[in-house]
């Protein structure tokens, strides 16, 4: 079996070794670096996606929180408004009721007073009539003759007025 010398230069061996290194470079590039780099890029992409999704949901949650707070504030305001309105309405209504009641009462009172007045007057006139009749009959009895009621009505009335005014 032949052996090479310890130091031997062979251009074809050198060329083969050069090509071997190139081949190994391509092997490393295509079978180690490319798949790993692709996977790393995918992982990076995935992580970024996850972060983006997390950010998105956080902003969504914050939005919702803000909306909720706004809604709560408006709801409170609304509730306050409702209560105020209700109070106002009730106040108005009660005022109206009281006013109506007052007016009705005064109306009733007025009516009653009018009635009383009317009745009083009626009664007075009745009484006056009675009295005049009585007076005429008494007078006719005293005088002995008929007193024409129509003729002397003026006196009688005068008399009665005077009587009525000084009860």
């Amino acid at each position, binding site marked *: 079996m032949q052996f*090479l010398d*310890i130091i031997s230069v*062979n*251009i074809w*061996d050198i060329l*083969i*070794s050069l090509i*071997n290194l190139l081949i190994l470079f391509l092997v490393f590039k295509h079978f*180690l670096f490319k798949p790993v780099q692709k996977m790393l890029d995918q992982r990076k992409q995935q992580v970024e996606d996850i972060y983006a999704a997390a950010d998105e949901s956080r902003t969504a949650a914050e939005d919702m929180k803000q909306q909720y707070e706004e809604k709560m504030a408006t709801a409170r305001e609304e509730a306050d408004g409702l209560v105020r309105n209700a109070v106002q309405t009730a106040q108005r209504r009660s005022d109206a009721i009281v006013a109506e009641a007052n007016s009705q009462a005064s109306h009733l009172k007025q009516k009653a007073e009018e009635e009383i007045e009317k009745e009083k007057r009626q009664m007075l006139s009745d009484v006056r009539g009675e009295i005049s009749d009585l007076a005429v009959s008494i007078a006719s009895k005293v005088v002995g003759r008929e007193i024409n009621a129509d003729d002397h009505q003026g006196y009688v009335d005068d008399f009665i007025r005077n009587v009525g005014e000084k009860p």
Partner: protein
Amino acid sequence: MSEKTKARVIDILLLAMIIVPFVLAIALKVVNKPVEEGISITGAMVYLTIPMPLQDLYITEAQVNSAAVIIALLGLCLYLTHGIAVVPNSKRQVVAEWVVEKVSNLVGENMGKRFMGFAPFVAAILGLSAFSSLSSMLGLFPPTSDMNIVAGWAILVFVLITHYKLKGGLWPYIKGFFEPIPVFMPFNVIGEFATPISMSFRHYGNVLSGVVIATLVAHALQAVSKMLFGWLPGILGSFPFLRIGIPAVLSIYFDIFSGCMQAFIFAMLTMLYIATGAPAED
């Protein structure tokens, strides 16, 4: 279940792809190796001679072993990236990511971000050099101790360096040889060509020195053990007891440490030469 079985079968095939080339290389060596008599330190064994113009092409042990290393590394790449997923579900994916990340960082730190395309090239140099040197632990002839192999890599690196220097224009490249004063021209030219030669000789010499020392120590230990235990009867008398264990300690330095160190140095020099050769980024 069938999907899982298929993946397992592919895994086993890829593992076989890593192991079988070395087994074949060892078998080829064992079949062709002549019975050794005494100390002989030679270059690679020649398996086949093909007549070519200029010079005969020798298919040597070094060529076969480096081909075995390349096939094994291809198998390793495929094995590491097989079943790669975004969410890691295997240890080998972690290893693959670690390798890619470390080499990318190394390239990024030493060459800058614009040379990131060199990461696979640097990984190829590191892997080929380191595994070639480490193949001596299997009893194989380490391809890196053949100068032709390392010279091929160094010439490829030299071509790359020159390519990047020429990117700055032909005139600045030529002018660079006459700096700082025109008298320096011969030294600059020698220095230019010294780069690949020094790179290849450094690597090859370091690995070869390890092989030489390992051979010498092995023979010395055999002689010493013959002296000490030669009185034992039968086969025990010729058994080299001292060759058990002691060469392993040397092997840790010469095969593992020196092999990986030289691979790292070669890759480092490649990166630095190319990065400094390239014109400054504008």
